[in-house]
């Protein structure tokens, strides 16, 4: 015998609670089932009550649908916050990678490569952001230039 079953996970699509999302399982005489995801309005376009909507309310109940809606909203909020947090963290991870590559590039600059100043080079290696990379790079380069100038006697 053919049946129509409403899944109990229906939820309101709007705050006025006259539109609902739901799943209807239609089973034919041979026992073959089809799932249909539906959005049902309380009233048809001509203003008459929607019989499917009425059937759903009788099968699942308004209270259950309201409860499902609240639970779904809470779950979505948690998911959204988690996604936002992960987006920030992914950006941090990407920044870390950019910082690493910037340091590697800095150490390839001749004046930095040839510098014997272990303390400043260590600070450059431990730089926490691109500004620190630039500052310590500049300090090392300036020192190397000064050493070179004093070696050649120039001012």
């Amino acid at each position: 015998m053919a049946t129509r079953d409403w899944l109990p996970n229906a939820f309101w699509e709007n705050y006025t609670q006259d539109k609902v999302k739901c799943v209807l399982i239609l089973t034919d005489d041979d026992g073959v089932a089809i799932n249909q995801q539906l959005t049902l309005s309380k009233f048809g376009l001509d203003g008459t009550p929607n019989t499917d909507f009425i059937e759903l309310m009788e099968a699942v109940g308004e209270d259950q649908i309201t409860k499902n809606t609240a639970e779904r909203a809470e779950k979505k909020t948690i998911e959204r916050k988690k996604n936002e947090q992960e987006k920030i963290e992914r950006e941090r991870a990407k920044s870390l990678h950019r910082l690493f590559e910037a340091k590697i590039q800095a150490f390839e600059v001749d004046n930095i490569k040839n510098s014997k100043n272990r303390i400043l080079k260590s600070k450059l290696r431990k730089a926490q952001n691109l500004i620190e990379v630039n500052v310590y790079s500049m300090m090392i380069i300036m020192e190397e230039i000064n050493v070179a100038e004093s070696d050649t006697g120039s001012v």
Partner: protein
Amino acid sequence: MLQNLTQDPYKGYLICASYAPNFYLYALNLIESIRDHDPNANICLAVSPYLCDGRESIADHVIHVGDTPREKLIALTKTPFDITMYIDADSEVMHDDISTCFDQLNGNDIVFCALTAEREYCYTARSFPGGALELCGANFVYDNRKQIVKDFMKDWKDYYWAQHYNKDWWPTNEEGQPDYALYPETYRQWDQFTLWWLTKKVDKYKDLKFDIFEDDARWNWYALYIESRTPIKDPAIIHHHSWGVSKYEKSYGNIG
């Protein structure tokens, strides 16, 4: 074979830079970062000769290796140390605790970091129908005084060369054919798969004593970890995992 495990072992760090010039630069940076935190460190650099520009001399030992991306497996067999901490070149040491890495061996033959399901989101590969990679070959300590460890390192290299470069070894099915249903062919490229096979399937190594670093994420902190999924715990080694970035970008957008 008589093995002298009583005298003070010679301990040191092994780093390998081969194939790509950027790995030579990463390796130099890693060596300096080790010295920042462990000034008395003994360091061996295994390097493709054509990458060298003189700066390799900052290492205490320099070993020349070939030009494939997996020369690390050859370097592991040539370590000059009794106890070796191998670190992937695209890493940086971040903490003075690095000098305690050798203590983590704690009587074992090898101590690895783990590949876990929780951290799979930033791995290139881990699970396959025949199992899941559990040990990470990126940073680990091994006791090369033991014959079983020497044999293991040699087999790691030999099996990997056979599986990937020569393509004359792969696990077989009942018909004697490569079993790509259980062990997908895409895993041929991974020496981590070889590591998994040797530790899980080869009888000779059933007595190999291996363990996982305490707080292992600290010892191989992927720069791609997301803090809310993998809480940060004062990393000792940060791993920039340059070749894994592509997967990360594929999932989350370009680094640019």
